């Protein structure tokens, strides 16, 4: 059976396709791609074992990792405990505040 072919359709003029809004697309891509850090800050009142417990419960850290972050908070004044999308970071900060920890959200550099 012979192959039936057709002539290709005439090409549409370039003006038929709107120019993409590159600035909007770049901005959207930037907003969704920038990771955010959840940072826990030191305070001299909250006890270290309490902070360790919170890290284990909230982030599922093993004891060793939780203590490492806790000691970083204690010695360096702060520790980045999570990095990811902003909405999730906001939830973590809220939960950390629910445990009375000093926590902030910041753009990851």
């Amino acid at each position: 059976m012979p192959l039936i072919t057709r002539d290709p359709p005439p090409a549409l003029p370039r003006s038929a396709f709107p120019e993409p809004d590159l600035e909007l697309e770049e901005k959207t891509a930037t907003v969704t791609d920038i990771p955010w850090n959840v940072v826990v800050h030191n305070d001299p009142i909250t006890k270290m074992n309490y902070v360790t417990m919170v890290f284990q419960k909230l982030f599922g850290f093993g004891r060793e990792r939780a203590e490492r972050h806790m000691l970083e908070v204690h010695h360096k004044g702060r520790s980045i405990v999570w990095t990811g999308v902003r909405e999730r970071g906001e939830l973590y900060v809220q939960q950390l505040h629910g445990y009375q920890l000093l926590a902030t959200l910041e753009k990851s550099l």
Partner: protein
Amino acid sequence: MKMRRKEAGSNDLVFEEIEPFFLDMLRRLPAFSDPGEDPAANARLYSAPMASGGDGDEFNEDWERFVEPEIRDLFRTARATVEADLAPLSGDMPPAAPPGTFNPADFTPTEHQLEIPQRHAEAWLSVLNQARLVIAARRGIGEREMSEDLPFPPLSERDMDLHRIDFYDFVQHILLREMGY
């Protein structure tokens, strides 16, 4: 004061033979955990989630409006749980000796006992921590004071606050240990 498991195999805790000095602190725990209108205590419990400037100001405003009320409710719920557990300790009791005096009776074990069910442990941890933070914020107690020896007998209400911070930490420590942390 002694602590034991309520019964074999149970993780419910019982604090018994509580001395008046500590009984007073326990009974007043919910009140001490409430920041009321104190600006420093509120600033500590409800801190800003983002640095100010740029997007931070708008984010912090939204946070204060929409998220902070939820956190306040969370703390209030925990406080209500602790108040219910403390209810059996209410009743007539001679007040503890005022600061600056030492009354041996303040450290004589009583028959009062406090039961903390395991399912309430997180609420207790929260309220104990809230109280420590509120007291410290109100008094301006920081790292330096926390590293000093506790004055005994307490000579002032400030000294008493240091003892409260220390005692609430002790109870937190017990609860965390029993929870396996």
